[in-house]
């Protein structure tokens, strides 16, 4: 069987829909990983040891095992305890938590690197501990790690392909649907790869602009 890319345009509709879902998952999981990363970092640094210890264990588990295995755990584990979430939500939670752990490591280091004087100054001015963290320390810490967190976002976009295995109809699964009708895996996986590549380029360009703006505002 030779190659025939002319069948691809017929399935543009399915592929574009899949692309939309891929972008939606990336944004949803990206937001979760961003805010989750901040929360995890604060817990890891300032939490009571009763909460800190289980979080440490969770972070260790998430960084030492493959994402695909975690997705299976979250999807089937939630069903097992009686929470039947749509695959899309389970996928967003799995991807988001996975990358939240990685972001948290970055943010923790960054919080510790914020000048001590900033903290002391804020406290002297009468801000509470919580206010100091929320308004003074965290904004500076997060700003400093935008570039490496951007790299995590790019990794997240590519890893979003993994949620196809738990049945989320994103780009990879869309390609598989087209393949099941045409029996042309090579053409459609190449088409899907091209779509990912384009989204990736857009994301990279967006992140570069964001970095420049942050650098300029300093």
């Amino acid at each position, binding site marked *: 069987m030779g190659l025939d890319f002319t069948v691809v345009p017929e399935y543009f509709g399915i592929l574009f829909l899949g692309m939309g879902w891929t972008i939606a998952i990336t944004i949803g999981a990206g937001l979760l990983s961003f805010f989750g990363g901040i929360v995890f970092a604060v817990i890891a640094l300032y939490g009571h040891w009763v909460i800190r210890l289980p979080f440490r264990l969770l972070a260790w588990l998430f960084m030492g095992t493959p994402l695909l295995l975690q997705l299976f*755990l979250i999807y089937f584990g939630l069903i097992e305890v009686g929470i039947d979430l749509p695959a899309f939500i389970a996928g967003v939670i799995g991807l988001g938590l996975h990358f939240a752990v990685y972001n948290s490591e970055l943010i923790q280091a960054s919080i510790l690197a914020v000048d001590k004087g900033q903290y002391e100054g804020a406290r002297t001015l009468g801000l509470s501990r919580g206010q100091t963290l929320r308004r003074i320390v965290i904004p500076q810490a997060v700003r400093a790690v935008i570039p490496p967190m951007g790299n995590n976002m790019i990794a997240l976009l590519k890893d979003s392909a993994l949620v196809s295995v738990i049945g989320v109809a994103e780009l990879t699964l869309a390609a598989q649907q087209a393949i099941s009708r045409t029996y042309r895996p090579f053409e459609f996986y190449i088409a899907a790869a091209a779509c990912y*590549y384009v989204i990736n380029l857009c994301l990279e360009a967006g992140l570069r602009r964001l970095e420049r703006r942050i650098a300029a505002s300093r």
Partner: protein
Amino acid sequence: MDTDLMIRVYPFFIEAAYVTVQLSVLTCLLGLACGTLGAMARLSRLAPIRWIAATYVSLFRGTPALIQIFILYFGGPQIGINLDSFAAGTIALGVNIGAYMTETIRGAIISVDRGQAEASRTLGMSRAQTMRKVILPQAARMMIRPLGVNINALIKGTALVAPISVIELTYTAQRFIGSTYKPFEMFLLAGILYMIIIYVVGQGIKWLDRRAQIV
């Protein structure tokens, strides 16, 4: 937690862990080969070779590894490449991680002080001799730790061959979750084995790194 079940199925996980180790070793060797070649090509004097290497890195880092595996395994037969799932998975993963290693190795090479190359050339060594005898030995020391990061990622990345039915750890966990409905127990078994593999490899890399620094 159903420990009886875990004791009953763990031999299957041990067997699967061997497959994961085999996948990791072969992928790593192929990745290092691709990475070394890629880094040399990225630093070549000939522009077209540089472009080919840059395109390789950009394409393989810019698309999901899972899709690359699918292209080779499912799409391969259409262009006359018939591989079993283990071979297809290993090759696709190896070439993929090779793109990341290309950048790691290149980074280490260009971080060697320029004066080293200039001095060797002045002493009459050829470009190849300079690379082999002066630059690479120094760069090798610097690339151990960042390559360790790549290797850590590739061990976890071997899970990506589960969807093409290579019977490794993640596939085994998935199959047992499906037949026993015990996701936590199966996750724990596979997770512990992954962590043991990663820990042992990590210690090995630390040991190498320490040895390389003393010299």
